[in-house]
């Protein structure tokens, strides 16, 4: 379990950002990941009081506050109707309902975990993150950025008419994915996919060529070998197109 000396319920994003500039301080998401660590922090900064636990849908986009839980994503009708249940499919295997009622979109994206279903899913959409310091950056760019002391305010997902399908393979339900693929067909017919759990930060790639996986690096660990992952990625992409057909 992680520990800290002081707790601050932030009154504004500016205050949270300022406090977070100190290396020993930490932002609290749903504490799912933090809890696994044994680190001791100075001040824990809670963003719970800033109304960032809402998904706001407009004609053009979804604005998803950083404190929105994965369970909210799973159950949101607008989000799942727009993207063919891809969001639900991406999160429904993560640990259990009780866990998804706690862990957040902010913590999931900021962590940029190499196993992340959440990052893989939103990367295949026209997504942006709003950061207190750097402003709005595309999720594709954010996924490549090194860790810094910024604060993620919200995720913005545009409704641009693309069709999306999420596929993952797990050795066992509720375990980390062995490989995850989120495929999208844009309105102009262009086909792209994000591939996560290779296991490395998810990346976006073009999938027009037969041997599209050659551009990517796959790794081996206790769950699967690099070769197996590459093989599965191709199969999952195929399944995604079948679903979208």
């Amino acid at each position, binding site marked *: 379990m992680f520990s800290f000396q002081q707790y601050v319920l932030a009154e504004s994003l500016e205050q949270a950002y300022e406090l977070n500039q100190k290396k020993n301080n930490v932002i609290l998401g749903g504490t799912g990941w933090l809890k696994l660590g044994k680190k001791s922090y100075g001040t824990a900064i809670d963003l719970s009081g800033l109304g960032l636990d809402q998904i706001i849908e407009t004609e053009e986009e979804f604005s998803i506050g950083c404190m929105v839980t994965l369970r909210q994503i799973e159950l949101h009708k607008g989000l799942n109707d727009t993207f063919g249940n891809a969001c639900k499919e991406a999160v429904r295997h993560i640990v259990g*309902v*009780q*866990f998804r009622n706690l862990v957040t979109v902010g913590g999931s994206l900021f962590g940029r975990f190499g196993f992340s279903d959440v990052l893989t899913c939103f990367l295949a959409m026209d997504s942006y993150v709003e950061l207190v310091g750097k402003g709005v950056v595309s999720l594709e760019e954010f996924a490549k950025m090194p860790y810094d002391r910024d604060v993620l305010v919200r995720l913005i997902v545009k409704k641009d008419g693309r069709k999306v399908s999420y596929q993952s393979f797990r050795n066992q339900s509720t375990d980390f994915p062995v490989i995850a693929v989120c495929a999208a067909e844009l309105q102009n017919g262009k086909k792209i996919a994000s591939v996560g759990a290779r296991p490395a930060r998810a990346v976006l790639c073009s999938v027009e060529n037969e041997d599209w996986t050659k551009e990517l690096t796959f790794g081996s660990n206790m769950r699967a070998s690099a070769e197996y992952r590459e093989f599965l990625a191709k199969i999952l992409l195929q399944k995604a197109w079948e679903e979208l057909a």
Partner: protein
Amino acid sequence: MKIKFRLNGKMVTDEVVADTPLLEYLRSKGCYSVKRGCETSNCGLCTVLMDGKPVLSCTTLAVRADGKEILTLEGLQKEAEEFGGFLADQGADQCGFCNPGFIMNVIAMTKELEDPTEEEIKEYLAGNLCRCTGYQGHLRAIQAYLEAKQGGIL
């Protein structure tokens, strides 16, 4: 840190050390049904209801209970007894260690899902681990319980 919340129907105002997990805090208040079965957020034994939603009390902090309503098995005796009877009918429990968290999540499920399919039941309860059984007795007990509820027997 000062917190004020409702625990099993009673208002509680208390001073907590800010990095205390909700689980340890609830046990210190006498809620011994709330147990720790793992260190990795995987077993579900520590499940409590926070504003009606099932959450892992091992994974969240006591300060996050501020302003909320928390229910543990101690506050849900009627529902627990009702469902417990169905578990007993099936002889579902072996050591019974997984039981409190499991019952909490079954109660949460019956509040949230209307007439769930077998697949939906399994998915809702995937975060509750049992080391002894093969879950089959549990599943039968849930199905019988749901049927009894729908048939107006409960």
